[in-house]
């Protein structure tokens, strides 16, 4: 049993015996109280609880059925929803998560369709045309699209007059660890072009996200922010040891522009002191110039950042050696002796040691292991080495700067460096949620066959699905649990080969259909994925819902759309009950709309098109009566005959129809109904007399003498008709 916790043998009884699956501690058992705002007056007689969408409970509260007829304004009950717990951590709000979810649909769908077309190309064994992009380039495009969704830690526009004391550029948005994680994955798994300058990319990454990497311990970033707030109060900045500390720290992690800016705050630059401290100032400036000339192994550098870029390794090596020689030369210069200011001398010397790659100084200047790690890349080995050596270097840095409680980004980083795809997936899921795994799998598999096999292998323990499918299904479940995001779940479900369609059908059937708009959105999804069965099922459900709530027109419409003959007929018999009572000559106006909806003959109406004919008959009859119009009367006879011939005319209407027809039978200007027609009507009357003996016969609301009256009229008419035909 995989879910079984290791048995606690101290009590002598193994857990499997007393049946607990997880270690149980009573203090974690805190009950939460959720107030219900149902707004009903007591007494409440019944409460029922069921699961709603996601982590919400649907609580139905019923009042005692009222015996007092006067208070009929009161509602009998109400349904309220209670959302349990807080769903996510505070870094990203629910609304922002939804925005990310919406935005990632298009890039995801595009990548899947490209994947399918590439697969079909290779199946046809066509060589991709030379203009085709490599697969990783498509993934790169996808990654960039997603990354832009996750926030843009751009710096604010530079103010016109720069504040000399502002060392740190202001960020528009707080950096998010989700984006940081995404960029890490992109850097290591997708971006083939930047593999050659991976160390420099890591330097940039740390510059953006240094504020995130530590939970409890200070970082260079946090120390800089703290110092920044105190700069204004400092009179002689170079006397403060923290000033030199921070300059070294910033230099160690490669924030060169900040270092230069800080150096220029040095007191020796001030005009009133320049004369006295000429040598000192010369040394400070020399270091600043050296820093700004630092060779960087990268194609380009952002505006505002400093360093000299080299694309090719030999050029870089040459420049690097020249630069190091200049540092050594400065280090052994005679000017140091002439520098009176001790802090300046020591601080600058310390900086030279950093640039020369002195491990001890690097270690003391940095706070976090990641910072130390980056400083190694900057000053000790600026070239890309294999992941294996990067990993062992990281292990070394962690040993030097151990943290007991590593941040989720650092756990992910270790997983990536350790080339352990399972750990990477697990950390993505644990630290960044289901969205991250479902989308980052594409990055993980972009360039590595091993990862590809790992996520696409069908697993027995997962019921035959692959890891990729599992994570997509889980993400789709999360999407379906929200009122606004369920509509995008189908995109992910349909990309799941094994269980996707089944779950999609369940999802669609579970959606509420009370509102036409929601139902139509649901039906649209059915149309897109050609789920005709589901869509007619939904229409049936909706039709019955409307029927129960008295919206007969809507109900008939949806059942017609669903081609549900059975329910339409059942509805018909109920409708006829109310027809019998309410259609008394004039009140057809209310029925008009419904009858129009039912349409004329030939359309599917499940016996309901009787109403249509009945209405026509009534209309003609009315015309004939009011205007004494023979043509209208003849038309009325025609509808009468078609009604009586039609098998779908319910028996209970036979007598009322025949009773109405008495007016036609006793038409003054001679018989309208011929012998054979009269015979047919007489037969129907006979059939009716027999049917009356059955117990389930419904007696129509007519005068008691109606039957005899009809019989008499029919007889008379038969006589007149025979005479007329002679």
């Amino acid at each position, binding site marked *: 049993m995989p879910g079984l916790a290791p048995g606690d043998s101290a009590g002598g009884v193994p857990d499997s015996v007393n049946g607990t699956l997880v270690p149980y501690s009573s203090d974690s058992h805190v009950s939460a109280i959720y107030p219900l705002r149902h707004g009903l007056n007591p007494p409440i007689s019944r409460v029922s609880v069921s699961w709603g969408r996601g982590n919400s409970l649907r609580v139905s509260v019923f009042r005692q059925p009222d015996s007092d007829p006067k208070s009929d304004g009161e509602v009998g009950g109400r349904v309220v*929803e209670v959302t349990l717990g807080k769903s996510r951590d505070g870094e990203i*709000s*629910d*609304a*922002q998560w*939804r*925005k990310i979810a*919406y935005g990632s*649909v*298009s890039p995801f769908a595009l990548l899947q369709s490209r994947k399918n077309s590439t697969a079909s190309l290779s199946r046809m064994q066509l060589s991709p045309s030379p203009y085709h992009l490599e697969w990783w380039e498509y993934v790169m495009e996808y990654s960039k699209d997603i990354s832009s969704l996750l926030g843009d830690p751009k710096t604010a526009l530079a103010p016109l007059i720069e504040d000399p004391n502002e060392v740190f550029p202001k960020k528009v948005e707080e950096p998010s660890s989700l984006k940081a994680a995404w960029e890490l994955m992109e850097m290591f798994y997708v971006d083939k072009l930047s593999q050659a300058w991976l160390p420099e990319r890591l330097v940039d990454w740390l510059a953006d996200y240094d504020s995130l990497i530590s939970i409890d311990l200070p970082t260079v970033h946090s120390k800089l922010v703290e110092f920044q707030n105190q700069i204004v109060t400092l009179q002689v900045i170079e006397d403060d040891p923290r000033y030199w500390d921070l300059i070294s720290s910033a230099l160690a992690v490669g924030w060169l522009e900040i270092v230069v800016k800080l150096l220029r705050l040095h007191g020796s630059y001030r005009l009133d002191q320049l004369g006295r401290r000429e040598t000192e100032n010369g040394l400070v400036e020399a270091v600043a110039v050296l820093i700004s000339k630092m060779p960087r192994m990268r194609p380009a550098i952002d505006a505002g950042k400093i360093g000299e870029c080299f694309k090719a390794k030999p050029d870089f090596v040459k420049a690097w050696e020249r630069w190091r020689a200049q540092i050594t030369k400065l280090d052994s210069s005679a000017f140091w002796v002439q520098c009176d200011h001790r802090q300046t001398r020591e601080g600058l010397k310390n900086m030279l040691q950093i640039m020369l790659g002195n491990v001890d100084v690097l270690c003391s200047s940095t706070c976090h292991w990641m910072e130390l790690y980056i400083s190694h890349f900057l000053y000790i080995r600026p070239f890309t080495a294999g992941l294996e050596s990067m990993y062992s270097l990281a292990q070394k840095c962690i040993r030097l700067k151990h943290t007991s409680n590593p941040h989720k980004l650092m756990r992910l980083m270790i997983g990536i460096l350790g080339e352990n795809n399972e750990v990477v997936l697990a950390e993505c899921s644990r630290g960044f949620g289901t969205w991250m795994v479902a989308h980052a799998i594409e990055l993980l598999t972009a360039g590595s066959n091993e990862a590809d096999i790992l996520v696409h292998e069908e697993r027995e323990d997962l019921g035959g699905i692959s890891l990729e499918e599992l994570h997509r299904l889980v993400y789709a479940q999360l999407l379906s649990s*929200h*009122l*606004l995001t369920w*509509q995008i779940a189908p995109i992910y479900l349909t990309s799941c080969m094994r269980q996707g369609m089944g779950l999609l059908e369940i999802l669609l059937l579970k959606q509420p259909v009370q*509102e*036409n708009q929601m139902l*139509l*959105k649901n039906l*649209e999804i059915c*149309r897109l994925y050609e789920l005709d069965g589901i869509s007619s099922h939904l229409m049936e459900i909706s039709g019955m819902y*409307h029927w129960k*709530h*008295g*919206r*007969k*027109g*809507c109900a008939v*419409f949806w059942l*017609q*759309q669903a081609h549900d003959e059975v329910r339409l007929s059942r509805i018909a018999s109920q409708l006829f009950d109310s027809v019998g009572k309410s259609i008394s000559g004039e009140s057809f*106006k*209310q*029925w*008009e*709309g*419904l009858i*129009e*909806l039912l*349409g004329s003959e030939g359309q599917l109406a499940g016996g309901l098109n009787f109403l249509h004919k009945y209405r026509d008959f009534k209309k003609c009859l009315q015309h004939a009566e009011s205007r004494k119009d023979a043509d209208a009367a003849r038309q009325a006879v025609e509808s009468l005959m078609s009604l009586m011939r039609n098998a779908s005319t319910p028996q209970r209407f036979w007598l009322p129809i025949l009773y109405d027809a008495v007016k036609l039978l006793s038409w003054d200007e001679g018989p309208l109904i011929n012998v054979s027609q009269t015979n047919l009507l007489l037969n129907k009357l006979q059939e009716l007399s027999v049917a009356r003996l059955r117990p389930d016969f419904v007696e129509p609301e007519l005068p008691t003498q109606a039957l005899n009256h009809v019989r008499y009229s029919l007889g008379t008419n038969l006589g007149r008709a025979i005479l007329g035909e002679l």
Partner: protein
Amino acid sequence: MAVIGIPQTQIHRLPQYRYVDSIRWLPSVSPLQQSAIVAFFDTDADTPSLEVHSLDQESRSLDLVSSWVPPSRISSLKCTQAFAVASTVSGSLHVFSATEAQDPSPAFRSVVSADGKGFHVGRIAGVDLMGCGSNECVSVGEDGRVNLVRVLDGSYRKVFDGNGLVSYTAVKWASPTEFVTGGCGFGLQWWDLRRPGSAVAQFKGNLGKGRTSGIIHSIDVHPSRKHTCLAGGSAGTVFAWDLRYQHQPIILSGTGNDTAAQPLSESEVWEVQYESYTKSSMNNFSSSKLLPAMFCSEDGILGVIDQGEEPTELLAEPCAINSFDIDRQNPSEVICSLEWESIAIVSRP
């Protein structure tokens, strides 16, 4: 052959982090200001709100001016020169003064409201207010009721009660005494208050053989051609119904269309409006030709259909466009509400 300097259609998408139920432009109080009235629904807090936002001309962002809390979600929203009217899913109707709502105060209030058991049962599906001269607001519901609300005092009278045997889903005034309603099965009804009791003309929704039936979602009547109404509904259907030729609807768009033009959309058309901004020259307007129409659809299309011409697409979104409105004072500007909790503003050159 230089293509320099041709102004492009600009599209601004503004995420709202709340569902947008409906959106309308408000008549502006000053020529330099544009504002819109938006019905929001916040799913996190489970609260609806009706808000007036002014549009910043430079950054094209929306700034909240004032707001009002409706008793339930807004189901339909319309604006005229003087008033805005909103109906709710719980069956109440609220009228606001358009100028008062734009006052920079934290909240605005309704001038009159109508609700209660005698008014509507459940969701009001459509409301409309006549532009000028008339002060009555018509409301229709799935309960089959048609009511008229007086804007002055909020009193209402019943025009028709279908008792649930019919359901209405859209309504539009044609003249101060006439209006058109639409419902299930592509049915349209023409009502004349001078001949009360029932609709004076009915379109039975028969759009020709092989066409699937559906629901009318939106109706528009152009003030210069009151005998023709434009309707949009299910299956990408947009058609015009002329009272003078009641049995010959003119199908502008829809699946199974006989015309060569491929329909822009095959899903629900949520809203249609006559297009008042068009580049075609005036001599192109013959009285027999229909005016161009704009529509938005479930599959994310905002397009313009001109009879006998290829339809043009203004906006294609990956999600549904649920409602839109053309600014009457500045018809090049269209504002849309998108399914994915955002608003789009389309500014045409």
